[in-house]
């Protein structure tokens, strides 16, 4: 009787251990435990390379340096607390940047700076001296005229030209 009890008990314990414990602990199988990968932020950041790529100040600094070492590229009041028209201004800005990038083909030395003062839209750009000045004047007049008709507000362009790319760092 006692012998049968103990044997039953041993069977029970082995069964229990097999059920309770994990299968792979006992059977000796290993597998990889993983969670979803958290990638590093890559927005507007240029990774360090060999050191032959010239970078302007604007390109070299990452976006978390805005308001610390960088300024803003578009100045308007829509993003302030209690002000309206955020999406409209943003869409306008995006359109203006693409428009000017296309009009002045490969002439832009740096990103555009768009300012809104009262009713006026002021576009400040830094350009290379690729075209003769007469062509520049024509394109500036054309841009101002077209954009002012499109946005129904006075548009002014302020251009400064530069011989070659203004380099801050080589990455």
């Amino acid at each position, binding site marked *: 009787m006692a012998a049968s009890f103990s044997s039953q008990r041993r069977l029970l314990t082995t069964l229990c251990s097999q059920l309770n414990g994990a299968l792979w602990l006992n059977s000796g199988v290993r597998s990889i435990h993983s969670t979803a990968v958290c990638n590093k932020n890559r927005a507007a950041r240029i990774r360090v390379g060999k050191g032959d790529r010239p970078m302007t100040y604007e390109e070299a600094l990452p976006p978390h340096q805005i308001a610390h070492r960088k300024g803003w590229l578009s100045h308007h009041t829509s993003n302030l607390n209690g002000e309206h028209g955020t999406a409209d201004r943003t869409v306008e800005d995006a359109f203006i940047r693409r428009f000017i990038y296309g009009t002045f083909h490969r002439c832009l030395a740096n990103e555009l700076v768009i300012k809104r003062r009262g009713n006026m839209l002021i576009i400040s750009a830094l350009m290379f001296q690729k075209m003769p000045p007469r062509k520049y004047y024509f394109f500036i007049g054309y841009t101002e005229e077209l954009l002012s008709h499109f946005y129904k507000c006075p548009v002014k362009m*302020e251009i400064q030209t530069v011989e070659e790319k203004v380099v801050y760092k080589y990455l």
Partner: protein
Amino acid sequence: MAASMRTAGAALWSKAVRDFDSKAAAAAAARPGVPPLPLQHSALTRSSVYMVPAVFLHTGRVRQTQTSRSITVIEEPDTLFQKLTVLVKGHDKAVLDSYEFFASMTAKELGLTLAKVSEPPKNIERLTLLKSVHIFKKHRVQYEMRTHFRCIEISKVTGSTAQVYLEYIQRNLPEGMAMEVTKTAIEKVPEHIRTPLWGDQSQAEKTSQ
């Protein structure tokens, strides 16, 4: 008295214009929000400039008006303001600092009493968005928008002076800054409240008795 107040306002405007032409240039050059004039050789550019800059100069200066001919005298009395509050909002604290200096200097030159120049606490609006286009709910990105404030309070001004001051301040407001103006006017007590009613009532009772 009101007419003289109006003319005084216009005379102040002309004086302000004459005095500020030079000061505005200095203030404009000092403020970081103003774009660089095309001819200036900034630290970044090393080369000569092709373009003629006169066409593109927008300094925002106030032109001198011929004040001796255009002073208007109106008979109706000028409104009086007990308090004029100018609240300026912006993203950049340095620009706000320089604008506060500019506005307080303007008020001092015009002879206005600056009751209070304060800095209400900044407001930060934060957004937490998903980092990835599809799944990965645990990984998010946070953005924030900071709004800094400055409050300039001027007490006891007339309507024309307030108009002059505000117009000058607003013409030179930098881009990316918003302004809210609150005026507290002083009005005369209306006729029907001037004398208390109980004086008339007691007389009426006496006459009836």
